[in-house]
């Protein structure tokens, strides 16, 4: 088995992870619709004390805890593709690896806060609200490394000077667009209502939509790039046989 075949196995974890993520997203009652930041402490406590919500919160967050880090192997595969680009230094692949664990780590902090709030729903409503605030702010503001990896990848593609670049230019433009769509979520602390609030158009829908779009599009072009690499290697191997 060649190295690149192993990479394909890693790549196939993405569609599986995506289905699991979407299922967990739909199961968590706080996402459908997103909880309002203007809920009082008592309303937040009532949300966690609701017997119908409690198992949904726990099971969805346990699933997210299991599979949240599934993005890391995909970012490692992208770093491998960056290494195939015509660069003089490994700066971009290093930077990509530097970003890889940041997003999942921040997500896990949010995840733990949601699970903590659900662990003892009888806790005082103010404490439950604090955990809920911490979870939502962290979940919304986890964009730094996602912005970073999109911009780094875009720059790496722009500087990939070769007749058949690893990724097309439009992939770089797309990554910059995704990075721009993620920026407003960084300002979630400015308001409890409106588009920047954690349930707002920019901080929730645009941000999470951009993440899903990035996963789908990058999954597609990454799969193509790995297949192409596999084809090139097969031809090279076939060329060696007659000798």
């Amino acid at each position, binding site marked *: 088995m060649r190295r690149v075949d192993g990479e394909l196995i890693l790549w196939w974890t993405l569609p599986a992870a995506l289905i699991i993520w979407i299922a967990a997203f739909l199961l968590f009652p706080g996402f459908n619709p997103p909880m309002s930041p203007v809920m009082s402490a008592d309303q937040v406590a009532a949300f966690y004390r609701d017997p119908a919500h409690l198992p949904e919160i726990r099971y969805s967050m346990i699933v997210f805890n299991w599979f949240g880090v599934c993005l890391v192997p995909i970012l490692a595969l992208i770093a491998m593709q960056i290494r*195939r680009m015509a660069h003089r230094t490994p700066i971009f692949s290093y930077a990509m690896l530097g970003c890889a664990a940041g997003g999942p780590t921040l997500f896990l902090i949010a995840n733990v806060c949601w699970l903590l709030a659900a662990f003892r729903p009888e806790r005082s409503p*103010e404490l439950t609200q604090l955990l809920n605030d911490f979870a939502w702010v962290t979940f919304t503001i986890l964009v730094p490394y996602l912005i*970073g990896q999109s911009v780094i990848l875009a720059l790496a593609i722009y500087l990939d000077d070769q007749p058949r670049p690893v990724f097309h230019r439009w992939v770089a433009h797309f990554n910059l667009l995704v990075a721009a769509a993620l920026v407003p979520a960084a300002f979630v602390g400015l308001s409890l209502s409106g588009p920047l609030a954690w349930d707002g158009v920019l901080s929730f829908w645009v941000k999470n939509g951009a993440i899903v779009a990035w996963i789908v599009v990058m999954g597609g072009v990454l799969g193509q790039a790995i297949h192409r690499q596999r084809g090139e290697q097969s031809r090279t191997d076939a060329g060696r046989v007659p000798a």
Partner: protein
Amino acid sequence: MTSAVTPRALPLRRRLLWHCRNNPKRELWLAWGTLVVFYNVFFPVFFVVTRVQPPPQPAWDLATQVQWFHERHLGIPLGFGIIFAIAGMTAVNNALIAYSMRRMSVSRAFGYSYLLIYSLSAVPGLLLLCIALIVGTLRPQRDPRLIGWLYDFAFLSFDGTMGVFLIGSLIWMLAILLDKNRVFPKWFGYLNLCNALTEVVVSPCWIFRRGVLAWNGQIAWWLDMVVFGVYTVAFIVMLFRMIQREDFGTGPLPARVA
């Protein structure tokens, strides 16, 4: 990579464009420029926009802590919004420093260790502080005891995240001292030791609420900040000179890595 001569006669904008297209060191200059931009935003955000540095006193009563948050209810979410938008730049900074170790006559393990440790460091050492302070300003009517908990959490996670910077700096130091390629002068290796030692003297902030060793004290904060400032300027200059000396020539790119 067509011309060996830098077109000094061109106007600035076209000269910049030429460098973006043709300069063999463009990846390194891009990373170095990112480093400069990041620190030029980082310090003003912490000292001017959010005004969370110099740090407030750990010994303040709850009413004063609440008042402190109230005075920053706009600056904190705005300034830290900027930090969260650009914090990905730290990955490029760390990549450039890891690259400096790749240029040395030491094992790749040094650069990789530094990259991993410093990538990890941003979460407890920077981003958690920002999140705790944003949550602190989110609801002014929150129970002051909870705001006080966020206040301690923020400043202690920021100042009290020590090991990542301690070990990270020591790894860079060791690489510089072992290096035979003379990528950096030896004195810069010892300056890394000074930076590492600041992480030792800051540790009493977990114990003392007043005095020179508290999180806002003359030793735990002021002395450390001076060393960090000198260290930051020094490594920005050192990396600049490393890139200047780097000689990739002007020939074609190296063969693709399969």
